[in-house]
């Protein structure tokens, strides 16, 4: 396959993820939190809840309501962004909610809200996927019972090549971008969007490639959670 030899702007192989760093429990105030670096993306996610819904009339009698807010810091992009929420922010908050909701046992917390806040400190292509990946870790960190983790990354096409995990440049100049979120154990896609032009067959290959990426990210999520757990255990031991 020619794609094996061709190299990308940043030197990665076609099916190679950017360097990823995930840390959980980074925010003392939040019930759960996570920090993710995915290439030059830097995102912090906080989870508050389950907690009493405010305003009350939005509560549901038989389940918790998941609310997701995606926000980019004014300095996260070039040029500077205006601090208020954009229509893009609103849409990404919505697709994050749909991506995470199937993984959470919402029905265990009637009338409650679970609030997920993603704050993008630096953006470099693929922030919605990185935010979902971090949010899943933060949800577990908050002790919220989950059916599965949710891992997310994009695949796409540039100069005729199908590639994994587009950076900002590839996103802008490429032919297509397909962000995917995936629950590995339940084998379900919970986020699927597409921008660009692809034949149905190329689209399938992108989705399959993105799912492979998600599987790898899932391992990194588990390691981050395990690391945190070990730290806690060591702290407890240290206290003895």
């Amino acid at each position, binding site marked *: 396959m020619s794609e094996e030899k061709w190299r990308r702007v940043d030197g990665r192989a076609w099916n190679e993820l950017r360097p990823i760093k995930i840390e959980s429990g980074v925010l003392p105030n939040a019930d759960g939190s996570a920090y993710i670096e995915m290439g030059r993306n830097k995102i912090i996610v906080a989870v508050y809840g389950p907690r009493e819904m405010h305003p009350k009339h939005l509560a549901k009698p038989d389940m918790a309501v998941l609310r997701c807010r995606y926000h980019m810091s004014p300095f996260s992009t070039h040029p500077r962004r205006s601090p208020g929420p954009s*229509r893009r922010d609103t*849409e990404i908050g919505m697709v994050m909610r749909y991506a995470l909701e199937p993984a959470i046992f919402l029905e265990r917390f009637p009338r409650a809200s679970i609030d997920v806040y993603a704050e993008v400190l630096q953006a470099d292509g693929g922030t919605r996927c990185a935010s979902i990946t971090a949010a899943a870790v933060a949800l577990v960190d908050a002790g919220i019972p989950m059916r599965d983790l949710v891992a997310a990354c994009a695949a796409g096409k540039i100069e005729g090549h199908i590639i994994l995990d587009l950076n900002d440049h590839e996103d802008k100049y490429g032919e297509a971008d397909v962000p995917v979120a995936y629950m590995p154990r339940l084998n*379900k*896609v919970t986020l*699927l969007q*597409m*921008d660009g032009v*692809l034949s*149905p067959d190329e*689209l399938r290959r992108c989705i399959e490639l993105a799912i492979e990426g998600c599987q790898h990210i899932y391992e990194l999520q588990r390691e981050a959670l395990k690391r945190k757990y070990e730290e806690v255990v060591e702290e407890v031991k240290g206290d003895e």
Partner: protein
Amino acid sequence: MSRLSIIPKLKRRKILDAIASGRRMDGRGLEEYREISVRRGVVEKAEGSAEARIGDTWVVAGVKIEIGEPFEDTPDEGILVCSADFAPVASPTFEPGPPDEASIELARVVDRGIRSSDALGLKDLCLIPGRKVYVVYIDLCILNHAGNLLDAASLAAVAALMEAKKPIYEVRDGKVYPTGEVEPLKLRRLPIAVSMAKIGDVIVLDPTFDEEEVMDTRITVTVDEEGNVCAVQKSGPQGLSVEEIWKAIEIAVNKAPKLREKLEAAL
């Protein structure tokens, strides 16, 4: 939504029972559209306009074309602005106010279908690089919401663009002068949005308002005339298996040509 309060639960039960029998509440097959009609030129004052109806769903699209400054990072491209108003005429649940999540999603998915496929050829809409470009506004006005707004809005938008005429400007000494002439926007592609709902384990095409209320998730696949996909949007609180996704893509690619016929036949 998969977890519903009591009345929707009963409704969901009924809808599932109907689907299980292979026929929907309104008698349609699972992969059948409601009656579709597209009419162009409904608002003479707009540079282009059209209405699309799918069953009782009714959307009007208007295109206005102005001159503006390009964005800093695309100095040689025209600008496309797509917005949707869920006018309170359209549904007892719509309220006057700033655009909500649903209307933002609608506008963004229609926008993406047109933008990704570069249907407008944005580079052809530049008059003076970095200084003057055409700005094409597509405004979607929802008049009656009976489910599957997205496909109707997408049809109306593309039909309005097909009809739209842009004023011709003469460029002299770094300035633009209106000539008084107009010419059609040349549409390079006709992206068609095809939406499906997953209810229980079944995928149904062109969901009604009631079906949308009880669906598990929705997937919209936008297809161009060569059978390429130029936008996808999965929306709603449940996941999809890859098989379901493959099936949705296939249905969309198969159904799009019929909708394109309606579009091309519209007066």
